[in-house]
């Protein structure tokens, strides 16, 4: 049993981590809140006083706000649909008996380890370049006119690149979940003559529901803040300016810190809404 002494030792052991994270959370957060209520232009006059909720109103009413929301939702939604659907199919395929399963697993997981700037640049130049890109060669081979991917189909291109990066994550987690499925249950259903689709809907999908939820929540949090993929491909042009990128531009490119900070507060609120759901699931798991 834990004694009073061991409890105070435990508190001491936790202290550095708790204090550091508390500081990491509170200091910048307070500063962001503080700036968000100020007109603050570091390169054009500095601190120009309090403006109340002006920045919050201006951020939302600026002409780039709704397109940014739309771009964010399209990227997050598009990538989620692609990675979850393909992830389920791929996980089911990898769960089947086959030769060289370990090697295939490695091939499928590999994109996850490629740093975002590399995958964005490789896709942008070697695949999506309208003249020398591999996709252009492929299009020409079939007699079609090559596409300028990142300008004509910018959103599709970004969704493709990001999906390629996150498909391994979804697949790996769903595969882990599938492998914990009781195979006897499936066999029984198979023997009873339940068709493949029925088995999928009534046994596999319900079993995966928790893993799918977790994939969706974790990916959403990461996808809301993708940055490098846009930074090195379109630089926010052609309708790919997400909320994250818009805030980045306000803060560092146009140095309008007050406005950017108000945007930052919106981003924090948005992320927290998603986070609450994730924490509930994770919290339940802790009790078990």
């Amino acid at each position, binding site marked *: 049993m*834990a004694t009073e002494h061991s*409890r105070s*030792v*435990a508190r001491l*052991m*936790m202290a*550095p*981590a708790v204090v*550091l*994270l508390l500081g990491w959370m509170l200091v*910048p*957060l307070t*500063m*962001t809140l503080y700036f968000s209520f100020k007109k603050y232009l570091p390169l054009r006059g500095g601190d120009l006083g309090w403006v109340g909720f002006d920045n919050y109103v201006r951020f939302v009413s600026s002409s780039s706000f709704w397109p940014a929301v739309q771009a964010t939702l399209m990227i997050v939604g598009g990538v989620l649909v692609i990675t979850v659907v393909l992830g389920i199919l791929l996980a089911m*395929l990898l769960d*089947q*008996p*086959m*030769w*060289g399963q370990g*090697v*295939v*697993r*490695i*091939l*499928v*997981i*590999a*994109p996850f*380890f490629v*740093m*975002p*700037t590399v995958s964005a*640049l*490789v896709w942008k*130049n*070697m695949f999506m370049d309208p003249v*020398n890109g*591999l996709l252009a060669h492929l299009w020409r081979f079939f007699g079609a006119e090559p596409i300028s991917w990142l300008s004509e189909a910018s959103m599709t291109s970004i969704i493709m690149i990001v999906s*390629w990066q996150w498909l*391994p*994550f979804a697949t790996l987690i769903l595969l882990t979940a599938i492998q914990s499925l009781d195979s006897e249950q499936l066999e029984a259903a198979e023997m009873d003559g339940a068709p493949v689709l029925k088995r999928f809907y009534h046994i596999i999908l319900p079993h995966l529901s*928790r893993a799918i939820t*977790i994939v969706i929540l974790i990916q959403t*949090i990461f996808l809301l803040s993708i*940055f*490098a993929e846009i930074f090195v491909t379109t630089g926010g042009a052609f309708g790919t300016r997400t909320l994250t990128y818009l*805030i*980045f531009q306000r*803060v*560092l490119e146009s140095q309008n810190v007050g406005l950017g*900070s108000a945007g*930052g507060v919106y*981003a924090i609120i948005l*992320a927290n809404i*998603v*986070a609450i759901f994730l*924490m509930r699931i*994770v919290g339940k798991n802790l*009790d078990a």
Partner: protein
Amino acid sequence: MARAVTTRRKSLNTALAWAVGLLIFFPILWTILTSFKTEAQAIASPPLFLNFDWTLENYAIVQERSDYMRFLWNSVIIAGGSTILGVIIAVPAAWAMAFVPSKRTKDILLWMLSTKMLPAVGVLYPIYLLFIRLGLLDTRGGLVVVLMLINLPIIVWMLYTYFREIPGEILEAARMDGATLKEEILYVLTPMAIPGIASTVLLNFILAWNEAFWTLNLTAVDAAPLTAFIASYSSPEGLFFAKLSAASTMAIAPILILGWFSQKQLVRGLTFGAVK
């Protein structure tokens, strides 16, 4: 009983899985292949797959022109430093939570997780400003601290889930045998905890290596790691496919190899123990 599978079905599965696997891996394979071509061969039409003259000159040019080793060294220091520092801070915390749990342990763990959800862009300017004021902009030390802080919740969580699997009875048995707290930690717990700590180190090293928001925004020249090195190829150098490929291959090769070792821990680490 294992399901009886016909050889035909197994062959079919194998063919399909390999085809899909190779398709997903293809961009990486293509990058590696292209890195050994000359610039002319890299943009040849139709594209050359294996029938080209293999050359290493791109690697030499990339190293010469952009001093790859310096960026690599920065990546190693930043990813390694932040991981080691994080583990040093997280081990005692995770240890205390796993072995001396209190009513608040769960709340503290969830709160730590919530700090991970803080979108980086929301605190970009404060951190940027603090870095300028403290003279940390474009220093490796500054990035070590920031990356340590953003990964600390994951490190604590992973260690916690590993430590929790160490049976408490073993500790009691050691105590019965008269082991002191120091002996208990040194001879009983540490050997059992090392695999978990190793997996944690590996995964966090990878995450820190690939981190591309803070490393791009807080470095310029001196402390820039490989993420920034590659971003500098954005344009117009990016149009030199062979050199871009050589640079990319050098940036991802170390982590691809480490990643393959860590794939089993990946699930646990990235789902905070919710999927095992």
